[in-house]
């Protein structure tokens, strides 16, 4: 059952100030309408993970951890590795986050993140097969939101892309009796493309990029578009109880592709610099 949940409350004064600013093309935190908040990424923050990254997008903080383990394939895809993506907005992250199993927002976050990885062809699942029908690699990607100030789809995609790009998988060997010997050596996971999410909100009829929590509380509707390294659209999700015009949809696709290029370059640089947390 899906029903409206406890929502962030924005005061009346604050609301009218936001409206005033938007009319002037500005936002309450001083940003331009299409300006992103500060983004920083730390790699390898969880040594026990196969790959991990911490992303800070404004005050939003997310850690993504990837574990690559060996397991059995699903019966209907005996020649393909597995991908399991989960997301939790941890109760430390906000007064509105509640402990317990993931709610519909967290499930949506996990599923849109999953589609970004899967549909972009970021991982070649046929190469994650070890022995057909018997042994494959399982790639677990777990997203933990540590502080929630909005923009979770985007920040999660940056964290996932960074974690998987720097992830390794254990090397394996097949024993004579068919059992699997898992080595301590590892190889790179081999990532094909970087799916980057960009989220827009419509507030008082204006479109803003990278909305924070307060803006999300005021928004009419939300659109997330995910593009891959070639600029192709690989995933999309409208949210919120409002609407977009046909023209807005097309315009947002154009802007998303542009922003994707910039952000992907910044993340690529971070990965190539191999910044490791000390």
């Amino acid at each position, binding site marked *: *059952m*899906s*029903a*409206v949940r406890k929502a962030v409350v924005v005061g009346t004064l604050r609301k009218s100030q936001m409206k005033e600013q938007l009319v002037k093309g500005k936002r309450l935190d001083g940003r331009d309408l299409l300006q992103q908040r500060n983004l920083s990424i730390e790699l390898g923050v969880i040594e026990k993970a196969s790959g991990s990254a911490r992303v800070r997008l404004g005050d939003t903080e997310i850690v993504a951890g990837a574990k690559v383990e060996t397991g059995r394939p699903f019966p209907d895809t005996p020649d393909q590795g597995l991908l399991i993506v989960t997301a939790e907005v941890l109760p430390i992250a906000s007064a509105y986050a509640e402990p317990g199993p993931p709610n*519909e927002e967290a*499930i*949506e976050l*996990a*599923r849109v993140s999953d*589609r970004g990885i*899967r*549909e*972009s*062809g970021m991982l070649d699942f046929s190469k994650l097969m070890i022995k057909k029908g018997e042994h494959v690699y399982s790639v677990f990607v777990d997203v933990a939101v540590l502080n929630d100030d909005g923009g979770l789809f985007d920040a999660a995609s940056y964290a996932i892309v960074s974690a998987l790009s720097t992830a390794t998988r254990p090397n394996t060997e097949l024993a004579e009796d068919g059992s699997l010997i898992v080595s301590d050596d590892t190889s790179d996971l081999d990532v094909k493309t970087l799916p980057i999410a960009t989220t827009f909100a419509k507030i008082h009829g204006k479109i803003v990029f990278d909305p924070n929590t307060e803006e999300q509380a005021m928004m009419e*509707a939300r*659109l997330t*578009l995910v593009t*891959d390294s070639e*600029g*192709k*659209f*690989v*995933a*999309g*999700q*409208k*949210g*919120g*109880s*409002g*609407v*977009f*015009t*046909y023209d*807005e*949809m*097309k315009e947002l*696709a*154009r802007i998303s*592709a542009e922003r994707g290029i910039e952000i992907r370059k910044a993340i690529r640089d971070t990965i190539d610099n191999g910044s490791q947390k000390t």
Partner: protein
Amino acid sequence: MKTALLNADKIRLDGRKLDELRPVKIEVGVIKNADGSARIEFGKNKIMAAVYGPKEVHPKHLTKPDRAIVKCRYHMTPFSTDTRKNPSFSRREIEISKVIRQALEPAIILEDYPRSSIEVYMEVLQSDGGSRCAALSAASVALADAGINMRDLVAGCAAGKIGGEIVLDIDDTEDKEGEADMPTGIMPSLGLVTLFQLDGNLSASEFQKTFDLAVNGCMKVYQIQREALMNKYFGQSEPMQESNE
């Protein structure tokens, strides 16, 4: 190994042309106990939607003083899929329930029903690709049948890409073997998008073309929705309205 989804003449596996909808039938008022209801057959999809409300909110702390809340559940029966579906409510069903709720809310005049709950239930008896769009379309007709004040109907239809071509209304096989799927829902008279999802792989120009085609498909579904409501409320003889266009 991929199946060829299109033949040399660009005809699809089920005989459809690229921009052709599957047959769609909608029947209104099919569940006696409900305040409003509709059955849709969209290709092999068979879906029932029912509306209960406006009614008291339960639990009470969810009550909104100035408007109705909408509860929404998209659910698949265990026998609706090729391989039997596990009866427990899946993460997929939770996500689709949310997306459909947010696609219906813009169409409902929530302020007309303060302190109320409007419950929308969709049951997929058989699924065959595009079931969320079909469920959304049925739910919107059920809301109208329940006499809920609305700004517009909501019509849903997907477009996508198979065998390199942009096509309307992806079915199950095309979804699994094809390159992209873009479920879309609109308020047709108002020209506004209330549901949008995408997964697959589309270039910038393909994105635009697919979106236009999806909107086009929604307009066709809208005609069938209207005829179904006319049928019930202004009486025509045949019990079901069918489109094979």
